[in-house]
C-alpha cells in the first residue's frame, strides 16, 4: 500500500472505478462528460467553475486536472486565480454568514 493517501498517478486510474460497479460508473462518466460540453455556458466557463470548486472541495486530483484543462483552453493564470478567489470568497462567506447565527445566539442568551 502507498504511504500517502493521495498519489498523482491515481488520477489516470479514475476510469477504473467502473470495474467494481460498471453501471453506476458508466452513468457517472456519461453524466460528467455531458456536463462539460458546450451548452448555455461555454466549456471554457465551466472549466473555470470546475477549477474554483476543485479548490473549495480541496481535491488535489481535480486541481491538477482543471489547471491542465485551463492551460489547454488558453485560460490565463489571472483568470484561473480569480476563479479560485471566487470559490474562496464563497467558502469564507459561508463561514462568516454563520457569524449572524452566533450573534443571534449571543443576543438571545444575554440579558
Amino acid at each position, binding site marked *: 500500500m502507498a504511504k500517502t493517501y493521495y498519489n498523482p498517478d491515481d488520477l*489516470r486510474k479514475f476510469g477504473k472505478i467502473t470495474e467494481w460497479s460498471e453501471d453506476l460508473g458508466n452513468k457517472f462518466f456519461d453524466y460528467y462528460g455531458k456536463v462539460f460540453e458546450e451548452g448555455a455556458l461555454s466549456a*471554457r466557463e465551466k472549466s473555470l467553475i470546475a477549477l474554483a470548486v476543485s479548490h473549495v472541495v480541496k481535491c488535489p486530483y481535480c486541481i491538477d486536472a482543471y489547471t*491542465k484543462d485551463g*492551460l*489547454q*483552453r*488558453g485560460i*490565463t493564470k489571472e483568470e484561473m486565480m480569480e476563479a479560485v478567489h471566487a470559490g474562496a470568497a464563497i467558502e469564507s462567506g459561508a463561514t462568516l454568514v454563520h457569524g449572524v447565527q452566533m450573534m443571534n445566539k449571543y443576543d438571545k442568551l444575554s440579558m
Partner: protein
Amino acid sequence: MPLLKSLSARKNDLSKPENQLAFLSNGIFKEGELPFFKDKIAKTGNYPLKPKKLEILQLNLGYMCNQVCSHCHVDAGPDRKEIMTKETMQQCLEVIKTTKAHTLDLTGGAPEMNPNFRWFVEEASKAGIKDFIVRSNLTIILANKKYHDLPEFFKKYNVHVVSSLPFYKKEKTDKQRGNGVFDKSIKALQMLNAVGYAQPDTELKLDLVYNPAGAFLPTNQQALEQDFKTALKEDFNIDFDNLFAITNLPISRFLEFLIASENYEDYMYALVEAYNPAAVESVMCTNTISVSWDGWLYDCDFNQMLELKVDSKVQHISDYNEDLLNNREIRISQHCYGCTAGAGSSCQGTVA
C-alpha cells in the same frame, strides 16, 4: 525557460536520435503500461501505415535559426551549421518541376537564413506550384537589416506565410521562445499586414501556428483561432487567416523538457488516451514527403529529426521517384502518438 544552446551544442545525450528512439521505446512502453504505437494502430486496422496521394513536398533548408525555442523538435539554433547547399536545391528544383504535390512547404530552422533562400524561392516559384509556403518564425524579419524587406519579398512571389506564435500574450510566448520574441513577432505581423497579408483586398495568405507552451495538448483549433483573432485585433490591430493548432511531439528539446520537468509519463498517457483512429486516417505522413537539408527523404519532419529515412529503394532527392516512394511503408515509433491525439496534428493543423 528559453535555452541558449541546442542539444547538439550542449552534447546532450538526446541530441542523438537513437537515444531518443530508445527512450521512447523503453519505460512505460516496454513495461506494457502503454501500448506501442504499432500495436495501437494495428487494433484499429491502420497497420502498416501507407501513403495516400502526395500533396505536400516539405523542404528543410537548414537547422540554423536566430532563436533557440525550448520546445523545438528540430533542435535548431544559431549554433547549427547544417544548411542546404545550392547543389541540393537544384536537385529539389528538378523534383518541384515534376511533382504531383500541390503544396511546396519550406521550413528550417529559419529558412530565410539560408544564403540561397531568395534565389531558391524565385526559381521554385516558376514551377507554378499552387500553394507555396514559407514557415517563418517572424523575428527573423527584424533580426537584421538584410531581412527587413522579407514581407515585400514574400509578396512579390505570392508566398503563403505560415508563422509560429505560441500565444497572444507576451509572457507565454517569451517563456517558450526567448525574451523579446513576442514584441518582435507582433511588429513583424504588422509589417506583413502592411504589405497586404491577410487583408480583404489581396490573396496573400498569413496563417499562424499555435503550439502549447508546456506539457499539455492543444484544445479545439477553432476556439483558439477565435481567441487569437479577437486578442490580436483588439491589442495590436493584427489580422491573420487561419490558426493551426499543433501538438508538441515528444522528441528533441520538448522531450528534454518533459523528462526534466517530470511530465514525460503524464504527457505520454495523455497522448495515448487521446488516440483518435480518425486522425490516423489523415495523418500528415500519408500525404507528405519531407526532404532534409542534405537531400535525404523522410515520411515527415519529425522522422527527419529522428533520422528515420523513408523505407524505400529511393532515399535521396537525387534518385527521387514519386511512384516508388508512394509504395513505401511509413516508419513509426511512439512519437507518432503526437499526430494522432484528439483532432490530430500536422504542419497544417488538425486533421480529423
